[in-house]
Structure formats: C-alpha cells, structure tokens
C-alpha cells in the first residue's frame, strides 16, 4: 500500500505526526496476525482502534509499544523509528494503560503509590518523598477524577476506578500519546462514559493524542475523530463515514458484511457464510453475527 518514506521526508512530516505505522505486518508462529497496517496519529487526535476480539488490536498496540517487533514495515514515534538497534524503550512520549492489573486486593499498594510509580517506577533506588511529588500525584489524580480515593488500596477498587488510576499512572510522565487497551471492557455504561469523557478532555485541553482499543465503538462514537477498524489482521482507516461502509468492511473481513444504519446507529451484520470470496489470509477475527456500533 503505502511506500516507506525517505528519512528526510519522514523528519519533515514528523513535526506534525506523533505516530506513523507504515505497512506493518506481524507473523507469529507462521500465522500472519497483522497485514500491511498503516495509519498516522496527530497531537490531540482521538482515534478508536475498533474491531472484534482477536482481530489484532492488542497486537497493534504491542507493536507501537515496542513489545513486539514487526515482521515488516516501520513504526515511527515522534519522528524516531522504533525497533532499531538504537531504539530505547521507556520513552516518555507514550503512556500505556494495560487491560488488567495483576495486583491482589489485599496488597498495600495505594492509588497514590501506583500513580507515583508512573514518575519513576522504571528506575533503581528509593524515591525521596517530597511536597512537589505529592502535589503532582494529587493534581494528576484530580485530572482524571480519581482524587476521591487516593489513599485506597488499588486492588480494592472497581474496574472503572482502576482504569482512572492507570490513566493517571500513564499521564504523570506527561506523554504526548496515550495508548489504552480495551479500557471499557467489563465496565457498566456510566463508568465507560466517565472514562471516555476524561480521555476526550485530555485530548482537547492538553493536546494528548489518544489511541483506544475497543470491541464496541458505542461509547466512543461521540468523541472519536478517526477510526482504525481492524478485522482479520487488516485495518481500514478514516472517519466513521469513510470506514463504516459495506464495501470497506466486507473487503476487510474477507466476507460479505452489511453495514446497516438504524435510527442513526450503525449495525454490522455478517453475510451468509461462503457468499463472498474468502480471505486470502488464514487469520483470526471473524465478525460477530450482529455487531452494534453507534455513530453520531
């Protein structure tokens, strides 16, 4: 699809680009889980990484984080290519909010401890407690609406509260790009809307680019600037109107799907099996029989 740019051009473009994926392909155990994925993200842009479970959303996030080297293609973060020999992980350009915490409920790790780990949790030694440090933690917690439980044990919080805490953890190092892996999964609607509102505010007021993966785009529809729709390891990129179309998504899924608009919402319905030309790639991620997607 898109050709790799010469370095000089890339540098010039990078001034306005936080993230660029160019023809990223990932093979794992002989299977192609991502095929030729390309997109860019600019400062302050709110991008939904949408698609069914197993489509490759998490793989894309892992490639961007440098946790998984692409088999082909390049990833450029703030003008610097990642994955090279000189690439150092842990750059503060990207903040990452994982899907799940692995901490037991009875561990005395308070919310403020977790957020403080966002400042220097990757460094050796013991931090000196200071007033400035404490205020930075408090201020970051306020910005995500989590200041009410700063001293609670993080393992005892609900899923939505933990998401807010991990967003604060990621934010405190002042990243320019925030990656979130299914932060709305298993949340009730109100909590999900709360998280989305917090993220939209960060994008709008602090020009932080947000890339958020979700299998359900419903709660994101009002705030998404762009969609990266992933199915069967391939991605379609654009505005909601450009991407959520029968021809675009059918090509993506490798089988016929109908994109229906019902009362302003979009519903994606799988076609008869074997109706269309099958995908040339044996990859995971078939569409759900009926796939609800709200669109403004």
């Amino acid at each position, binding site marked *: 699809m898109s050709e790799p740019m010469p370095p000089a051009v890339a540098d010039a473009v990078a001034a306005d680009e936080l993230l660029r994926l160019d023809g990223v392909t990932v093979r794992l155990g002989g299977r192609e889980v991502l095929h030729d994925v390309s997109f860019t993200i600019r400062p302050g842009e709110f991008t939904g990484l949408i698609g069914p479970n197993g489509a490759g959303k998490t793989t894309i996030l892992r490639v961007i984080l440098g946790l998984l080297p692409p088999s082909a293609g390049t990833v450029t973060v703030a003008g610097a290519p990642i994955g090279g020999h000189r690439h150092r992980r842990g750059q503060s350009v990207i903040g990452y909010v994982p899907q799940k915490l692995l901490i037991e409920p009875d561990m005395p790790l308070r919310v403020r401890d977790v957020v403080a780990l966002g400042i220097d949790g990757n460094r050796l030694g013991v931090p000196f407690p200071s007033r400035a440090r404490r205020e930075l933690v408090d201020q970051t917690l306020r910005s995500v609406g989590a200041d009410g439980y700063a001293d609670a044990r993080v393992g*005892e919080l609900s899923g939505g509260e933990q998401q807010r805490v991990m967003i604060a953890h990621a934010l405190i190092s002042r990243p320019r790009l925030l990656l979130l892996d299914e932060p709305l999964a298993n949340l009730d609607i109100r909590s999900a809307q709360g998280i989305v509102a917090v993220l939209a505010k960060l994008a709008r007021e602090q020009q932080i680019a947000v890339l958020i993966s979700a299998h359900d785009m419903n709660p994101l529809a009002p705030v998404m600037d762009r969609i990266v729709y992933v199915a069967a390891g391939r991605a379609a990129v654009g505005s909601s109107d450009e991407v959520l179309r029968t021809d675009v998504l059918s090509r993506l899924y490798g089988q016929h799907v109908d994109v229906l608009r019902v009362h302003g919402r979009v519903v994606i319905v799988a076609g008869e099996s074997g109706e269309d030309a099958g995908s040339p790639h044996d990859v995971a991620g078939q569409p759900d029989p009926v796939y609800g997607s709200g669109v403004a």
Partner: protein
Amino acid sequence: MHYLFAPGLWSSSPVRVAVLVGTVVAITSAVVGVFTVIRGQSFAGHSLADVATTGGSGAFLVGLDQFWGFLAFGVAAAIILEVIGVQRRRGRDVTTGVVLGGALGVAALFLYLGSQHSSTTGASFTVLFGSIFVIQSSTIPALIASGVIALVVVVALSRVLLLSSLSPDVAVARGVPVRTVGAAYLVALAISVSLSSVAIGAVLSTALLIGPAATALRVAKSPVRAMFTAAVIGVAVTWIGIVLAYDSYYWPPHGHSWPVSFFIVALVVLAYLLTYLRRPADRRSPERDDLGAAGTARPEVEVGA
C-alpha cells in the same frame, strides 16, 4: 524461671552472636519477604529452601560450614528456576515437584552419610532446624555481608519490582528489563533463604521470610511502611525467640534448652494471628461498576444518536 532475662544472658558469647546474626537475617528476610508475598512467589521461596537443604547437608558432609552449601545450591536453584519458569510454563508444577522431591531425597542421604562418618547426631538438626547458637565465628562476616547485599539489591529494585508486579507489560514498555530484574530478585531471595536456613533451619526458613512480611502487609498502608513493619516484626520475634530459648534452659526438662527455631516460628504465627484481631481494613466501594460476568457484557444503549 522467674525472670525473663536469665542470669548470664548478655555475657554469653553465643547469645551475642545469635542476636547480631539474627538481626541481620531477620531484617533481610522480612524486607525480601515483602516482595515475595507481593509477587506471589512464596512457593519459590519454599522451593529454594528445599534445594538449599541438599546444599547444606552436602556441605556438612565435606566439612564446610553449611551456610556455603545453602548459598551455593540456593543461588543455583534460583537461576534454574528463572530459566524454567519463564521458558516453560507448561509442566512447571510437575517438574518442580519432582526436582524438589529429589533434592530432599539427596539431602536425606547426605545427612545419613554425614552422621555415619563423623558420628555427630546434631548435624541433621542443625541443617534442618537451625544453628543460631552455634554459628562459627569465621562465618559471621560472610553472613552479614550476604544479608547486606540481598537487602541492597531488593531495596534498589523496589520500584521496578512493584511496577512489574502491577503490570509486566507496562514495565517492559517503560524499558524495565523484567527478566533480569526477576532473576536478580530470585538470587536475593536465595541469599535470604540461605541466611534464614542458618538461623532457624532450612525446613523453617520460609517462616521468617513469609511470616513477618505477610503480617506487615495486613497492617501497613504502603509498600515502604510494609518493609519497615516487617523488619520490626522480624527483629522482634528473633530477639524474643533467642531470649526465650535461653530461658528455657531452666524450664522442664531441666538442663536442656528448647530449640530457638520453635520460639521464633511460634512468635511469627502468633504475630500473624494477632492481625486478625484488628478490624478489617476499611473497604470502600462507592462506585462498584464491574459487570459480574466478564467479557460478555455489551451495553445496548444508544450514544449520541
């Protein structure tokens, strides 16, 4: 029997050595133990102790101080555990079980041969249940140095260990070499287990590792406070255990002290049980928003139509 501090307690050289070494061991074990519990690696601690038993009994057989056996086998086991643990998830339980059984079997052989060879019946007891009153003065500097090394390693790694316990992906994404950190931590754990094996025995060593830490984690509010609390508890139970063991010389049956390991372990258990008398930590849940069944929930509500 009428006094807590029996006559001659402080003038006794073995007691002074026991207090000195016991303090170092207690602090190291407690602080390392806090991370053992947070990381859910209590079983690793126990495994290292089992393998250390083999080393300790082997060292006794060839006439070395058992500490060197504990240390060599413990550290080797830690490195092997790291390699197996990360690369071979499946079958890990079975492998571990077989290896640990084998290690203790060899320890039994070594102890038997050792006691035949030197006709010292105390060796088994020393290796299995500790020797804090009979520490050779030549080993004391090594014991203290090892304790300080393990302590420094774990404190230096404390933030990184916490971050990778919270989410390994976040840690890796932020440039933490998670495997190296995990291996360094396991080596510190092995050192700590070796020290604890010298003090209260290989079989009981995990009591000093896990007990004070688990107790502290129940009452402390932050990881730093947990480390301090665990150290205080560890030192307290060790000191009181030593004093009681010395006093017990005057208890029935007269003329024989009770083993210090018994007192220390009993006090560890007591301290842990006492935390259950406190009211449970105030749990708050103003905004319970999980939807019970995971993964299946998909809100069917229009947004911004």
